[in-house]
């Protein structure tokens, strides 16, 4: 049986819900790679989240944000048409409450600082480790997120 990157932690993560209504956290996944989007979507499912929309470039990300108003945006940096840092800045300028997490393999200091200065809340280096992303999600959601008891955990 093949082992998935995200599958490793399938039973380890207690679902993170929105504290205001107990509903799953809704995500916008932005990456020009279908592979990367699928991988992130699978991890999000293991966190008890829901994919509100996907986008393959920064421009589409902005319109998808306007359409779906997700709780968290997972944003790649290197993309065609409009790069992730610029898209993050535009989203946060229009919606200061937006939670944008950059997810990129190009995780050097300069890029991280630029992303944070322009409105991103956090940075996750690819290849993404599910346990790292999970902790970042909890941190970024802050009081707006609540960790529910894992199904079947008996807690």
């Amino acid at each position, binding site marked *: 049986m*093949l*082992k*998935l*990157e995200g*599958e*490793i932690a399938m039973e380890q993560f207690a679902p993170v819900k929105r504290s205001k209504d107990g509903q799953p956290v809704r995500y916008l996944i932005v990456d*020009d*790679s*279908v*592979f*990367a989007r*699928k*991988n992130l979507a*699978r991890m999000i499912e293991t966190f008890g989240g829901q994919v509100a929309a996907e986008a393959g470039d920064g421009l589409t990300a902005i319109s998808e944000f306007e359409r779906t108003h997700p709780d968290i945006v997972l944003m790649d940096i*290197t*993309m*065609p048409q409009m790069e992730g840092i610029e898209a993050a800045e535009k989203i946060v300028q229009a919606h200061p409450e937006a939670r944008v997490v950059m997810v*990129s*393999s*190009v*995780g*050097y*200091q*300069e890029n991280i600082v630029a992303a944070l200065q322009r409105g991103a809340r956090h940075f996750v*280096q*690819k*290849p993404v*480790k599910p346990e790292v992303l999970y902790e970042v999600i909890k941190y970024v959601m802050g009081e707006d997120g609540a960790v529910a008891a894992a199904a079947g955990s008996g807690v």
Partner: protein
Amino acid sequence: MKMELIQPFINAADAVLSQGLSGTTKVGNLSMEENAYRRKGVAGMVALTGDIEGRIVLDLEPQTALRVASHYAGAELPESDGLIKETIFELANQVVGNAVCALNDQGFHFRVHPPLLVTSAEGDKTSEDVEALMICFETGLGNVFMNVALRYNKRRMSDHVATSAKAGR
């Protein structure tokens, strides 16, 4: 091509493949490619511009690419599936991104371009200026070949040296 330039790419590929394929990766043969590059199967190329310029190609024989993509997808993919190409692209992207982080720590600045599919059977011939190194990574799912062709951007390098000297580094 200097080893200090190549080593971050070898380390990055080793780390990305080991993590993604859930197993150990062995660095196999290293060879200089003096002739034109010959594609082995599904090949994704990532170009770099900036203080160091060139390109990295991640190349897998078709059956290995299928096994690797199926591994990531968690299901057997058909041979024609577009996700195979996407998987190789993303792996190339991750290798380059991680290597660039290490080189950036040394003061080099780059722009990483989105991956492209290598469709021609044969690539450009290498030159004295841009030598290519082929590295084979032996994984549990087959061999992954990485072809690295990079050179220092001379104009940028002289700026870099001057800036470093001014800063007393």
